[in-house]
């Protein structure tokens, strides 16, 4: 009986916290569903819209190319994921498994990158991106590449996959060497399939990170055709600041894809395997 009461207490706290986590978004949704005739500043506030309508959604989709933003965000995030997985796995393998000259230097060079936040070097990165012509004023492809390349690989990914390679018993590799496989065959056919769970973790967290990234795209983008969701929604919020119904509708539309992605892959987020993906 005592345990029951304690559990009820726990549930009450957790339900309260869950409500707090949802209220900002629910209030946005409520505002987005209110029609023109309804005062969105009503006192006291009205949660269930009286003049219930989807017009704000229709209008914002007509005024702002949100679907285009979604496609752009997807292109950037998916490419960033593919590059991260390939480059991190390639670099992680020798760091975990091979002995070579300069291994320590390579290791500490990569480790050093963790200590330097992107924000402190973004200005020269921008200058270099301009010099490499990876800007949307040259071409659409260049614009995408400019958004993707600075995030194509990072130390967290390399170390995450290195940890995974380290857990594979050496004997497996040794028997493959005896069978006459070379390093590349061992890597692609044998080891890479064995670290799939870590690759999945890296892919998912890179996707979420890239999807939400605002600072860098807002610096490099000039062409509205290439706006990603965060940049587009921020732009929308300043352009329509006088009409919060539209801002709210646009914001709600923009979170639908990532929420679906999250719910579909939720087991990766809540299984407790996130520890490896800790970022500084």
């Amino acid at each position, binding site marked *: 009986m005592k345990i029951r009461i304690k*559990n009820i207490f*726990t549930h009450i*706290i*957790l339900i309260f*916290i*869950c409500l*707090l*986590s949802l*209220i*900002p978004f629910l*209030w*946005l949704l409520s505002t987005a569903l209110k029609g023109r005739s309804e005062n969105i500043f009503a*006192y006291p*506030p009205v949660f269930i819209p009286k003049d219930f309508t989807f017009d704000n959604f229709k209008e914002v989709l007509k005024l702002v190319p949100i679907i285009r933003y979604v496609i752009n965000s997807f292109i950037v995030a998916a490419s960033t994921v593919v590059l991260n997985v*390939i480059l*991190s796995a390639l*670099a992680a393998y*020798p760091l975990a498994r*091979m*002995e*070579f*000259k300069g*291994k320590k230097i*390579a290791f500490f*060079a*990569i480790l050093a*990158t963790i*200590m*330097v936040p992107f*924000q*402190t*070097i973004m*200005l*020269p990165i*921008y*200058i270099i991106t301009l010099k*490499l012509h990876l800007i949307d004023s040259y071409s659409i492809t260049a614009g995408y590449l400019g958004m993707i390349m*600075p995030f194509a*690989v990072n130390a967290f990914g390399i*170390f995450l996959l290195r940890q995974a390679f380290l857990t594979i018993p050496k004997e497996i590799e040794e028997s493959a060497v005896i069978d006459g496989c070379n*390093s590349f065959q061992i*890597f692609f056919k044998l080891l890479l399939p064995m670290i799939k769970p870590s690759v999945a973790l890296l892919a998912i967290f890179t996707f*979420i990170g890239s999807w*939400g990234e*605002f*600072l860098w795209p807002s610096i490099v983008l000039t062409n509205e055709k290439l706006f990603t969701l*965060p940049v587009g*929604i*921020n732009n929308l919020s300043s352009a329509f600041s006088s009409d919060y119904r539209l*801002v709210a509708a646009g*914001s709600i539309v923009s*979170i639908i894809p*990532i*929420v679906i992605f*999250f719910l579909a892959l*939720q087991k990766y*987020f809540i299984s*407790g395997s996130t*520890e490896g993906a800790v970022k*500084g």
Partner: protein
Amino acid sequence: MDLKKNIGAYLFLLPAFIVLLVFFFIPFFQTIWLSFFSYSKDIYSPDFIFLNNYIELIKSPLFLKTIFNTFYFLILCVPFLVIFPLFLAILINQNIKCKNIYKIIIYLPVIISIVVVAIAFKWLYAPSGLLNFFIEKMGFNSIGWLSDPKISMISVAIVTIFKGVGYYMMIYLSALMSVPKELYEAAEVDGATGFKKHMLVTIPHIMPMIALVSTISSISALKVFVEIYVMTRGGPLDSTKTIVYYIYEKAFENLDLGLASAGAVILLFIVMGFSILNIFVFEKDKYKV
């Protein structure tokens, strides 16, 4: 054979190193290099002034204010982000129903773009918005969440905390899984229950994780930008202007590349203290050669 082995390793490392060279190492040294030049007269022919940008920054009341603001923000967020997610993780880690639903909902703000979270809060913070309604309902005067310079930074910190709680809760949850059940049983035999049990067993056991969460939440607090950019643009009266915001403004709005870079180098030194602690103390197993 030896040479062949070396070349193989280098080929594997090469693609990642090219990217890191172009988008990390060169920009890193360029930041330091640029910080020695003055761009204020002519952006195309900067003057070499060595450390004068640093001297100017240290003398600048605005820059000192951004340093103060950044640490004020850190102090507002970090204790909350270290303690509250741990409390939640301990609650959820019990043998209760609907565990996963709670985890999913509390994690939701983590995956939603900070831009949307900031827009949602801007709406809650509106002068006649939802939050002020509740404040007035409780009998207080309405608050200028984003317009009162005394309050604005707290309002920004609330957004950061809101977005971060789920993330740190998951880190704690994975740490809690590693606490051996026998320890709890032993504590129960000794008569410890509930709160005391956690103070005796859980906290000491996951101390390294608490330390890690402290440093990573500090590092991300020092880098705060988007919440501020979307909600206040550093205002009112520079009350939410942080170091990164200052760097951004100098670099991309005033085109004063020298001052921006000097500010960046100073931020780099501040962040590095925390990172070194992380890498060589709290996470040293992960980063062993």
